């Protein structure tokens, strides 16, 4: 697999690679629910999105290719294609006020006065829809990283919200970065603090049947980069 890039991304990547990095704790202060299907937010995914949006002035990148997306974090490991496992845990709720609930989105169909056609609003593309979406509410979310604090802070000033449907959910009120003594991606009870490829943990085995077939580096949703991985919280 050949990784694609752009001139702007290449320049940003070179700058980030040269930065000195150290263990840090990133905290997001929130005041409303976040829509997420996974109980966490991939922090490297959030940073990569922000880098791309900044580099392209909000335009994003075309679908199809697998891009080398730079972020100002350390790299723990690279796979055979050169894709990086970034030195970050997932962004997870850490305050005691966590509530898992759901919210509903309605898609209203066109009103009868807005069209001369006889629309079917019970089925098909103009159907009136109500979608339940899982929410997670917590006032404080945290991720541990190895990174460059000033660059991270600058980047996070453009990360206005997290999670899905973030035009109405997941607004971040403030970001804070603190020093951290040590960084680790597997906790003391040997559970993964982020998605970890099996090959990173056990370079000598091909697959672990306890592992899932998951995305593990930004963009997580891209099918081409999925491999066998231990999920967040999974015993390794």
């Amino acid at each position, binding site marked *: 697999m050949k990784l694609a890039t752009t001139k702007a991304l290449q320049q940003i990547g070179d700058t980030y690679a040269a930065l000195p990095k150290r263990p840090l704790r990133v905290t997001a202060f929130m*005041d*409303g*629910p976040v829509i997420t299907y996974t109980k966490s937010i991939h922090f490297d995914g959030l940073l990569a999105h922000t880098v791309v*949006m900044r580099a392209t*002035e*909000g*335009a*994003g*990148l*075309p*679908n199809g290719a697998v891009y080398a997306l730079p972020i100002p974090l350390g790299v723990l490991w690279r796979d055979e294609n050169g894709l990086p496992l970034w030195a970050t845990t997932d962004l997870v709720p850490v305050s005691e*006020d966590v*509530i898992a*609930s*759901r*919210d*509903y*989105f*309605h*898609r*209203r*169909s*066109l*009103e009868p006065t*807005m*069209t*001369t*056609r006889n*629309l079917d609003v019970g089925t*098909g*593309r*103009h159907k009136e829809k*109500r979608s339940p979406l899982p929410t997670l*509410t917590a*006032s404080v979310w945290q991720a541990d990283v190895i990174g460059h*604090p*000033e660059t*991270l*802070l*600058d980047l*996070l*000033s*453009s*990360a*206005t*919200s997290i999670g899905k*449907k*973030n*035009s*109405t*959910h997941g*607004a*971040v*009120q*403030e*970001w*804070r*970065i*603190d*020093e951290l003594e040590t960084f680790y991606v597997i906790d003391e009870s040997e559970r993964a603090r982020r998605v970890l490829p099996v090959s990173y943990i056990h370079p000598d085995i091909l697959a672990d049947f306890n592992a899932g077939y998951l995305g593990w580096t930004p963009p997580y949703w891209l099918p081409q980069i999925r491999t066998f991985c231990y999920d967040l919280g999974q015993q390794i």
Partner: protein
Amino acid sequence: MTPYRTKPNTRHYQFLATALTALSHHDPAQNRQSNISLFRRADQLVERTTSAIPSPEEVKVFISAFHVPESLAPFISNLTPAQFLAICFVQKFIRYNNGDGLMEGVTRYTILQDRVRVEALNATGGFGFWARLNTAMRTNGDMRADDMELLRLLTAPQQIVQLALDALSKDTASVIALARMWRDTCVQPRDWKSQTENWDEKIHIPHVPAALQEQAFKTGSRVVMPVPSVSANSLRHEMIREPAMWHMLNLLNTQTGDMPDGAAALLYNGGDLNEAEPGDAFKLTRQIRNAYPVIDLLGGSAKGFILGASNVEVSAWIVCKENTVPLARFGITPDLSAFDLLSRTELTRHTQKRVSGSPMPYGFETLVQGSQLAIEIRLRPYANDLVAGALAVAVDTYKEADSTAFGQSARGFGLLSLETLKEPVGDLTSLKIQYEAYIVGNVLELRGGLVSGRLTTEKVVV
């Protein structure tokens, strides 16, 4: 090291909206057969209003004052104090009203389940819950003068009653099933005709003091409960998407009926996907977003591809004590609970036979006239000046031409008066002029794009 801190870089509005008429905003999560619709609610962590937290020992003593049928005692002992008290409330209600035949048949229990849930959501204590339930069920709430158990229920510690109310609202079916079983255990056989309110004593069903094995009792001061709330997504539609659409169409001198339904849907509700993505979707997306600032502001979907993310974020809170933390940045200190703002409106729907047909009464909860909403609208850092102008004219159009929110505006609900607390830094007038000049200067191209479904590209995309 001093922590590094930053706030996300957004240009934002803050509004204080005051309801000039009651707000109707039904709860989409209600799963009920009733002809009463609840106001929208969202789970929220709220501070309990009590200062005294009973110890597990005090709870144990409190619970042991209740007597349960001996045959059910081993099963009841597995319940938590909150679940047990929830069942006691319903059991008492059934006991007091069964003598009149009120609680006979499945339908009555379906109605009871529905109303128990609604009243448990709204009550703040046992005292209020009992009164509300009797009002809702049209019963008189009469009690025996020597019923010490009911007296204890009505005056139970606030801390434990709030958990019982939680069980009554969330686990209603289980609570009612066990309460009914409790009563049925005490009921005489069917051929006994002389049912009275104290038949269990007459036929000597043995009772024992209640004892719960596990005195699990949360001693924290906060509890999760469904609190009245408003949908930011609904406000995003009412305050931005729809007025932005009408404003642009007026400038273009066209209407939704002139364009394909996909184009009208894109402007009105964001549209949807219904065919495969073309190879040049990225280029088309850029072209469309550059041509129509409204689409760049709100995002949406062509028939084969998503047109990218929205450049605007909306948050909204009811001004109430439960939202004290987010309201602080508006400089608002609320003094009322959201539950104090709830009211109930009852209307009658007439059948075609206006005189002889049976009219159907129905009711719904509303937020009372005078309730306030704090609304924040934020532009993301990637929004250009035309997009900022599109947002500014949308908000102006909303203020001047509509100013209603949520449901039943045609019946007079949801009229808002909007006070601007904060505007984005910069010359808004100039942004609005710039945006309107752009639309007027490109009328033919923009109108042609909508009417043809090409949205200024070389392909039909909606």
